[in-house]
C-alpha cells in the first residue's frame, strides 16, 4: 500500500465568467493505511481534489506523489488506484461477477480465474449469492457493494471514494458505513473518502480534511476538528446541531459582552491575544439549560423542541435570534413555551474580522492528543 502526498496542488477551470479556482494551492499527506475523509459544502473543491489524485483531472500546478512515485503526469489507468463513484457505474450488460472482475478482464485474466476471484471478493463484501445476477436486478446498496467489490479486486495502491453513499437511504448508509470500516480493516488500504456529510466524516475518519472555497480549513482527527476548530467555518460545519455564533466584544479579559444585549459571558479563556471585536461560539451540547421565569443573561423562550432519542434539541427565541441547546429528556424535561436560561460551559472566541480561532475555554481540561496541523 501507499501514502499519498499532495503538494501545492492547484486546479483552475475556465468558464464564461473567467477563471474559477476549484483547488487553491493545497498541500497534505495521507499516511499509509489511513482513512481520511475530505468534507466540505458543495462547490468547495473536494471532488475536484479527489479527481486530481485519481488523474481524472490534470492539475493546473502542483505535484501528486503516491508512495514516493511522482504521478502528476501518469494517466489515470496506470496509477493503480481504485475509484468508487457517487453514481454507481456498473456495466448493465455484464453480470455481477463480470462487473467485479472487470479490472482482471482488462489484465487478460481467464474467465474461470475471474469467476473464482469474484467469488472470493463477493464473499468478503457479503454478496456471494448475487454473482449471476445483472446489476439492474439489485438494490442500490447491493449495487454500491458490487462497485466496492470491483475496486478491491485488484489490490490497488489506494481507494478513492467520491460520495459513494449519498444516494442510499439513511439506514443503509449506516450499514454501509460499518461495512466500509470492516472492509478497510480487512484489506488494510489507504482510503480517501469525499463527503459533504460531516457526521459520516466524523464516524469514518482517522483524520479528516475540512475544505471550503478550494482551501483546507483544517486537517486533523475528528475529535480535534470538533473540539478545537481552526476557525468559524470549521466550528459551524462540523457538529450537529450547529454551533451558536454571536457577535461580541471582549474588553476585560475572559468576560465578553454579547453585542446589542447586556449579556456577559465568562469564557474562562486566557485572554492575552484576544482582539476587541470577536465572535462568541458555543456548541448546543456545551450548555446547561435551566427553566426560569426571568432569565438573567443568555436565554429566551423555547420555540421548538425536537426530541432525538434521549435528548431534546431546543430552538430558543432570544434577543439576538435563534439559539440552540441540548437538554436531557428525563433529567431536564423542557417544553415548548418555557423560558430558559443558558449557561455556557465551553466557549470559542473567533476573530470577528478573519474568523480565525483566537481562544478556546478549557473547563474540562481535555486536550486532544495531536498537535495543530494545516
Amino acid at each position, binding site marked *: 500500500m501507499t501514502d499519498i502526498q499532495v503538494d501545492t496542488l492547484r486546479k483552475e477551470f475556465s468558464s464564461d465568467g473567467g477563471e474559477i479556482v476549484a483547488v487553491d494551492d493545497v498541500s497534505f499527506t495521507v499516511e499509509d493505511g489511513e482513512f481520511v475523509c475530505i468534507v466540505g459544502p458543495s462547490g468547495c473543491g473536494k471532488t475536484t481534489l479527489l479527481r486530481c489524485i485519481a488523474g481524472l483531472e490534470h492539475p493546473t500546478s502542483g505535484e501528486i506523489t503516491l508512495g514516493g512515485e511522482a504521478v502528476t503526469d501518469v494517466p489515470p*489507468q496506470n496509477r493503480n488506484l481504485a475509484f468508487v*463513484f457517487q453514481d454507481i*457505474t456498473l456495466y448493465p450488460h455484464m453480470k455481477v461477477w463480470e462487473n467485479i472482475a472487470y479490472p482482471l478482464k482488462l489484465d487478460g485474466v481467464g474467465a474461470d480465474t475471474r469467476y473464482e476471484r469474484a467469488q472470493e471478493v463477493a464473499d468478503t463484501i457479503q454478496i456471494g449469492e448475487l454473482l449471476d445476477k445483472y446489476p439492474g436486478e439489485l438494490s442500490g446498496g447491493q449495487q454500491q457493494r458490487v462497485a466496492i467489490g470491483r475496486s478491491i479486486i485488484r489490490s490497488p495502491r489506494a481507494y478513492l471514494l467520491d460520495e459513494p453513499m449519498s444516494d442510499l437511504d439513511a439506514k443503509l448508509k449506516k450499514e454501509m458505513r460499518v461495512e466500509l470500516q470492516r472492509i478497510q480493516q480487512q484489506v488494510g488500504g489507504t482510503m480517501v473518502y469525499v463527503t459533504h456529510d460531516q457526521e459520516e466524516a466524523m464516524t469514518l475518519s482517522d483524520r479528516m480534511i475540512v475544505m471550503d472555497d478550494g482551501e483546507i480549513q483544517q486537517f486533523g482527527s475528528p475529535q480535534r476538528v470538533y473540539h478545537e476548530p481552526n476557525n468559524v467555518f470549521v466550528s459551524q460545519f462540523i457538529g450537529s446541531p450547529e454551533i451558536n455564533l454571536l457577535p461580541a466584544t471582549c474588553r476585560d479579559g475572559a468576560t465578553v459582552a454579547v453585542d446589542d444585549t447586556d449579556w456577559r459571558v465568562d469564557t474562562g479563556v486566557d485572554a492575552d491575544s484576544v482582539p476587541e471585536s470577536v465572535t462568541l461560539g458555543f456548541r448546543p451540547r456545551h450548555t446547561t439549560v435551566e427553566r426560569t421565569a426571568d432569565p438573567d443573561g443568555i436565554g429566551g423562550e423555547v420555540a421548538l423542541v425536537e426530541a432525538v432519542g434521549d435528548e431534546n434539541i431546543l430552538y430558543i427565541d432570544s434577543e439576538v435570534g435563534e439559539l440552540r441547546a441540548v437538554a436531557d429528556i428525563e433529567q431536564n424535561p423542557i417544553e415548548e413555551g418555557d423560558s430558559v436560561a443558558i449557561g455556557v460551559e465551553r466557549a470559542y472566541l473567533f476573530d470577528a474580522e478573519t474568523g480565525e480561532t483566537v481562544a478556546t475555554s478549557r473547563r474540562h481540561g481535555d486536550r486532544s492528543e495531536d498537535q495543530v496541523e494545516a
Partner: protein
Amino acid sequence: MSVVSDRVTALVPSQWWQRSHELLSRVFEDDRRLLALCLTPALALYVLVAILPMVWAFNLSLYEVSTLNPVWEWTGPGRLLDIVASGTFQAAFGRSLVFGFGSVAFQIVVGVSLALLVNREFKGAVLARALALLPYMVPAVAIGMVGQFMLNAQYGIINLVLIRVGILNNPVAFLGLPETAMATVMVVGSWKFAVFVTLLTLARLQSIPENFYEGATMCGANAYQKFRDVTLPRIKNVILIAALLRTLWMFNKFDIIYIMTRGGPGETTTTIPLHAYEVAFNQYRLGEAAGIAALMFVFLALWSIVYFRVARPEEEVRVA
C-alpha cells in the same frame, strides 16, 4: 377584449358549450375511444398508400397485362416461379444483394465513425454536428447529378485530383466501366445515408454518461477497451435497427442508380428495382413487373423476420 369574447359566447347558447365539453371529456377519459380516434386517420392513410397498392400489385402479378390491351389475361401463380427461374431476374437479384448489403456496410462503417468523431467535445462541436448532418438534406437527384459531374473522365474533379496526387496515370470513367460502376454507385448512393446512421448513433452516444468512461478508466481500461465495453453495448441495438432500415431502403433504391447509370454499363448496375422498371416501362410487361415487385416484397419481409429473430435489435440494453 372582454367585450368581444362576451359577444361571441353570447352568440353560442351555453348548453352547447356544456355539451361539447361533456362529449370531449367522455372521449378523453375512455382509453379505447381515444385510441380509435388517434389511430383511425393514420390507419386509413396507411391502408390507402401502402396496403391497397400492395394487394393491387400482388393481384396484378397473376395476370398478363399490356399497356395496349385493356384485357387482363389470367396466368396464375406459376408466373412467379417463371420469374424466379429466369436468368435476368437471378442476375439482377444478385446485383441487388451486392448493392444492398455493400451499401449498408459502407453506411454503417462511415456513419458510426462519423458519429464517434463528432460526439467528441471540442470547440465548434455543435457546428460540426450540424454540418455532418447536412448531406441528409440534399435530394438524391442532386447528389446523382453532382456525382456524375465530379466523376466525369474528361472534366471531373475526382479524376483531376487522383491524377495530380499520382494515384492514377490516366482518367478513369468510373461510371462507364463494368469493373467500377457498381462500387461507384454504392459509394455515391451511400454517403448521404451514412448520415442517417450518424443521426441515430449520435443520439444514443450522447446519452452515455461520462462517468461510465471514467469508471472504466479507473479500472485500467484503454481507449479500445472503453469502446468495446462501454460504447459498443450501448449503440449495438441502434446500429442493428439502422442496418435493418437501411437494408430495406437500399434494396428498393431506384433513383440514384437510375440517374447515374440507368443500370449500365451493360447491365452491371441493374438491380431488381431497375429491372422491374425496365420490364414495366420499356417492355410494357406490367404483370411481370408487378410479379418482380411482389417477389421483392416477399424476400424483404422474410429477411426482416429472420433478422428480428436472430439479431434481436428491439431488445434494449439493460440499464442499471
